[in-house]
């Protein structure tokens, strides 16, 4: 059983005394899943805020791990197990590592860097605040009376996700593999040295030298064999 299902069972046991049907749910009687979602959501949001405001670059990447892991827990609470583990594997496992390597390769300063934020910080804060206010208002107003039914079989179990992915979404899936291949080739092309000629001649010369040395060694060895 999933984490969300167990939490849901727990909540169902605690709330059966007060609520019996789905219609009587409300803001003032949050279920256990909602409380867990709220707490993990607060942690996630706090980590995201620290990620975009801290002045230590490596700490930003590490707080991003907390934010993305919190989102994985939210997926688990929403009974989307497969997405949750994919999130942990790809984001926490590889994207953050890539970002840390990028910070390392661009010689990011360790410790506080005073110029992490640019001059348009207050404009950015205004835009983000306005967008947040508008989005939250619209979303809350639109979905005030909508509840997700988390009981029953999990909506995002590996079986359900795999069945829908390979029954209905095969063509986009294959196109995605082509896109990943293109991205791989593009990353290789972008990260090669600009002067490819100078870089190309040197290793081939070395390789020629190596093959010549190997040939000479083989000749001497065959000579020794013949002499014996």
């Amino acid at each position, binding site marked *: 059983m999933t984490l969300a299902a167990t939490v849901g069972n727990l909540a169902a046991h605690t709330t059966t005394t007060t609520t019996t049907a789905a219609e009587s749910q409300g803001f003032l009687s949050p279920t256990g899943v909602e409380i867990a979602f709220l707490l993990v959501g607060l942690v996630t949001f706090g980590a995201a805020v620290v990620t975009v405001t801290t002045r230590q670059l490596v700490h930003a990447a590490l707080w991003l791990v907390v934010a993305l892991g919190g989102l994985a827990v939210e997926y688990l609470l929403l009974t989307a197990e497969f997405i949750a583990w994919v999130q942990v594997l790809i984001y926490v496992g590889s994207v953050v590592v890539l970002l840390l390597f990028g910070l390392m390769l661009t010689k990011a300063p360790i410790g506080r860097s005073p110029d992490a934020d640019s001059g348009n910080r207050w404009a950015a804060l205004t835009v983000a605040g306005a967008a947040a206010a508008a989005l939250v208002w619209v979303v809350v107003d639109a979905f005030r009376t909508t509840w997700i039914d988390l009981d029953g079989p999990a909506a995002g179990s590996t079986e359900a996700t795999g069945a829908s992915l390979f029954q209905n979404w095969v063509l986009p899936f294959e196109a995605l593999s082509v896109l990943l291949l293109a*991205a791989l080739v593009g990353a290789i092309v972008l990260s090669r040295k600009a002067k490819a000629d100078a870089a190309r001649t040197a290793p081939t010369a070395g390789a020629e030298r190596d093959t010549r040395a190997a040939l000479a060694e083989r000749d001497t060895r065959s000579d020794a064999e013949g002499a014996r």
Partner: protein
Amino acid sequence: MHLAYPAVLSALLFCTGLYGVLARRNAILVLMSVELMLNAVNLNLVAFDVWLSKAAEETLHSGQALTLFTIAIAAAEIGIGLAIVLAVYRNRGTSDIDKLRDTAEGHEPDGPDTDAPATGPAAEKAEATA
């Protein structure tokens, strides 16, 4: 679960990422903020897919499939983005996006016809690495 909880969290995370994209100066921090925005969209997709898979008769699980596609595309995007940032860093000696103003209009020190980078250390670095 009330649908407003994941929707509000997703909106807040998206706006946090928006602030980061607009306010950060290091290109890698901007990429981190873009990741936050993409994750906010993923949370929205998953929440609405779970809602619709119980509310609708037939479902294609399109929200979760799209989430997987978004995750894969985000991984490709971060790879390409980091390759671009590293190439810029190798050529200019900086990953500070406020200093990369070659295509900005009305910016005097490096006009469109001077191909050498404007600032002294960056120029030296470019010559050293080229």
